[in-house]
């Protein structure tokens, strides 16, 4: 524990601020890209017919967090969100029927699809599937059939580099769909994100300490939410560890310590 500006500073607590949160929606940082994405999606839901939406972006860019936030936001439509797509088509359709508080009738996939289409065709429901790049071929075919029935909106979130293969499949190319891309944070947005996190935990006063080295932090993280948080988390833990071990050399945040944290996180490959 050290003192800064007359207040005590605990690097352990600071590290926890930038730890991966279980439910980050509460502290969701709405950058320019997110605001744009939100308005685009709401516009599509209001004005267009039911179709497939693909949310693409690099890993750690904030797709999952955005989808969690969006699920809470879209009040005029019902949302059903699947975080892990490891299931069989029959289970998937059954889950959808159960979510509508209806008893599952029939056993074959064809019967189930007919039932689920009938139930949801009268409603406005958005089915959100995160990590859609992991979907099996049979699941993709089922989603395609359900999308054709015009019973659901489907939002499939996936990594950008893995999305091309799926998007180029003939069944998706020929069908109406929209592709929305989430981008990395800009330098100022990344600054705003860190500041807002510090402010939330009443540690805003250490911002000048971070700002001094923010260029290297941004460069190493590449504007990626997850990498930036991970880098700050590890940096604070490193400084805390150095303080506890009595290694004065690494007891403050500087370029050297940040780069060591980046090596530890695998952002720099040595």
């Amino acid at each position, binding site marked *: 524990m050290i003192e800064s500006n007359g207040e005590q500073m605990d690097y352990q607590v600071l590290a926890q601020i930038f730890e991966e949160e279980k439910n980050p929606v509460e502290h969701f940082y709405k950058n320019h890209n997110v605001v744009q994405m939100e308005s685009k999606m709401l516009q599509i839901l209001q004005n267009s017919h039911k179709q497939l939406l693909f949310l693409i972006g690099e890993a750690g860019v904030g797709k999952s967090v955005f989808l969690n936030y969006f699920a809470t936001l879209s009040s005029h439509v019902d949302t059903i969100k699947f975080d892990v797509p490891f299931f069989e088509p029959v289970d998937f359709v059954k889950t959808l029927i159960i979510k509508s508080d209806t008893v599952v009738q029939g056993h074959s996939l064809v019967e189930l699809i007919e039932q689920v289409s009938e139930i949801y065709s009268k409603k406005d429901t958005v089915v959100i599937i995160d990590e859609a790049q992991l979907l099996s071929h049979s699941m993709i075919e089922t989603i395609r059939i359900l999308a054709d029935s015009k019973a659901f909106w489907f939002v499939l979130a996936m990594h950008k580099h893995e999305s091309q293969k799926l998007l180029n499949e003939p069944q998706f190319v020929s069908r109406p769909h929209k592709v929305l891309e989430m981008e990395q944070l800009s330098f100022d947005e990344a600054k705003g994100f860190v500041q807002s996190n510090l402010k939330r935990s009443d540690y805003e006063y250490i911002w000048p300490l971070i700002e001094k080295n923010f260029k290297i932090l941004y460069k190493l993280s590449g504007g990626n939410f997850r990498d930036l948080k991970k880098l700050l988390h590890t940096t604070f*833990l*490193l400084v805390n*560890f*150095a303080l506890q*071990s009595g*290694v004065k*050399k*690494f007891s403050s945040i500087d370029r*050297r310590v940040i*780069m*060591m944290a980046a*090596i*530890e996180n695998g952002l*720099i490959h*040595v």
Partner: protein
Amino acid sequence: MFDLDTLYKKYLFYRFKKLLVVLILVCISVGVLYLFFSFQEDTKNSAPIQKEKVKNLKSRKKSQKEQEQVRSKEAKHYKIFTLSVKEKSRAYIEKMKQKYLKFGLQCQIEDQNNYLNLVCGETNSYKEYQKIKTLLKKNHIKYYVVIKKEIPISDKKEVQESTLQTPKRAKKVESLINKDSVQKKETNRTTLANIRHSDVDVELLEKKYSEHKSYEIAIRIAKEYYAQQRYEKSLLWAKEANHLNRKKEQSWILYARSLYVLGEKEKAIKILKLYKHFASSKKVERILQRWQSNDK
């Protein structure tokens, strides 16, 4: 929790790697620059040698050309003209013929399309031509030479060279014309003035003047006529130029000189004196002094 030593070593190794990359890049850049400048220096050094080669080549070509000229000198026909006047000035040309005879020049009067030309030599020998030339120069007589290449009749091409030589100026025009056009020329452009004019085509100038009247063109035409010893024409054009710009001395001088040569000396002096009243000109004063001293 963290192995700080290992992390630090990795950090140092990473920095070293980056530094190494930068050093390699710097070395490559320096190498490339060195090669570039050394190449430039080499080209600079080799440039004089190349120049020397070019010079040698040029001098070789020049000497070859000279040799060719010498060889071709013997195979040419030289016709030397000294004067060209209108038929009404026959007395003048006769007088000049007698005068040139005193200098040892045997001249003949040739009649061509209302013009009389005084031919003071016609020869195929280059040596003889040189002799006449020396004589003319010695007596400050202006002359024009028409050089024709001696080519067999079967060969349709003929080379005609005409030169205008004054003590200060010597110009050459070379043209390749076929036999038919030579004959045509002889009928249409038989006057000496037409044959001998240098690279300046007076007809072209006159045509140009008819399209666009300007002092510069008029004075140029007057000068050309004066140089061709066609003083009446020169007189007219000097007057024309003077109409366009009365302030410029050249038209006054040329007008007066033409008059002087045509024998109207008093009028010429009077004109220059008139000009002196409203403009001071050292040139005019010099001419006046010379003329007045000649009269005395």
